[in-house]
């Protein structure tokens, strides 16, 4: 989800290659990874491994940070003090997740400023899901249930990803993530059990968020050129399609349990596979959102850049304060 490669369609044909590495070092590295050993920051690693990780981890970090925006805009409008406190805590967690991940990426030799600059200038991608608008309070329920649910699906296997700092960040994140999904489901449950109007609102949110949530796992395996290498290097532990299927299988009964209907006429239980068959995903929509044509893509980046620029004086004040304290300490 947050970690699939988000590239425009025309970039797709350029898989990361492993040329020009010292063959002995490369072989030793491959053997360590194959044996499920963790790679730590100062260990030798192929350039392609480092690059893939920097891209994947920073993309993941950006997704956490941009992910605060669609929910943040509902904090002041939460329907009760309890819901408000919960949403505030959830959004704060997402900010924390961004920080853990930026720190993990920094151990690979990139800087925080470089990553933020890449996000703000549009060079770096973030999950397509956050370029859809949150129209009603039910959307906050749908996001917690489906989007955080998809995130958990994706992040659980990454606790065993081969790069130590990334795996450790994932352990922390997964611990914090499960309340996010449960609070979202609880919102949906309350609405689905409410007045006909509230139930309609919940169904409408599910209708709008279902397909974008399935897209979060990224393009189908046959269109995901770097998956094989990422799986071999244990950067990814499972393919996009495998995780997507698992998500469908656990989520459909959750919808049924609260009387909501998954908006897919082709959805059927396949006894032989022990899984649900589901209808085709509109990948053209996905690539359009990756290209920056999401409904609220511009709004999201504008909000991010504005927050960064308006916060400049705080960063400068902190530097000035630190300099003053250092100066005083030196004088004593």
């Amino acid at each position, binding site marked *: 989800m947050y970690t699939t490669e988000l590239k425009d369609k025309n970039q797709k044909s350029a898989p990361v290659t492993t040329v020009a590495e010292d063959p002995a070092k490369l072989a030793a590295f491959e053997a360590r990874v194959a044996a499920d050993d963790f790679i*730590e920051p*100062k*260990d*030798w690693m192929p350039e392609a491994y480092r690059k893939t990780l920097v891209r994947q981890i920073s993309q993941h970090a950006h997704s956490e940070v941009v992910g605060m925006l669609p929910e943040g805009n509902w904090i002041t409008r939460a329907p009760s003090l309890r819901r408000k406190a919960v949403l505030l*805590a959830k959004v*704060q*967690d997402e900010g*924390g997740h961004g*920080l*853990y991940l930026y*720190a993990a990426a*920094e151990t690979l030799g990139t*800087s*925080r*400023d470089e990553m933020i600059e890449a996000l703000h200038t549009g060079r770096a991608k973030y999950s397509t899901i956050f370029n859809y608008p949150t129209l009603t309070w039910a959307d906050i329920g749908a996001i917690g249930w489906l989007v955080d649910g998809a995130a958990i699906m994706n992040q659980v296997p990454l606790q065993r990803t081969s790069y130590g700092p990334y795996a*450790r*960040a994932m352990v*922390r994140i997964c611990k*914090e993530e499960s309340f996010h999904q449960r609070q979202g489901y609880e919102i949906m449950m309350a609405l689905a059990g409410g007045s006909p109007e509230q139930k309609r609102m919940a169904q409408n949110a599910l209708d709008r968020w279902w397909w974008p949530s399935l897209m979060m796992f990224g393009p189908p395996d046959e269109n995901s050129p770097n998956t094989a290498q990422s799986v071999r290097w244990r950067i990814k532990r499972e393919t996009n399609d495998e995780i997507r299927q698992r998500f469908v299988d656990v989520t459909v009964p959750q919808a049924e349990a609260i009387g909501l209907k998954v908006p897919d006429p082709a959805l059927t239980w396949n006894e032989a596979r022990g899984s649900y068959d589901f209808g085709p995903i509109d990948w053209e929509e996905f690539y359009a959102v990756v290209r920056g044509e999401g409904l609220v893509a511009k709004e999201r980046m504008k909000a991010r850049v504005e927050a960064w620029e308006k916060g*400049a004086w705080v*960063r*400068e004040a*902190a*530097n000035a*304060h*630190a300099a003053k*304290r*250092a100066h005083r300490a030196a004088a004593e």
Partner: protein
Amino acid sequence: MSKEWPLWEVFVRAKNGLSHRHVGSVHAADDRMAIEAARDTYTRRMEGVSLWVVRSADIVASDPGEGAALFEPAADKVYRHPTFYSIPEHVKNI
């Protein structure tokens, strides 16, 4: 004046009686702000009772390349482990 704040490594003592353990890092302009950022980032769920922050630049680490020289000599000194010594079954409390 866009100077990136230095990086600090964060250590948390989960409860008294345990040692501080590395949990991650934060950027902050100085030590006091590093403690505050570490508190917000790493102890939102009662994960600790005490924090240490250390400038990342001040940490000296061993080089994985000298791993063999530093750590392998221990492998042929099995006599440092109690299981190296065979004592008859009937001898107890040793």
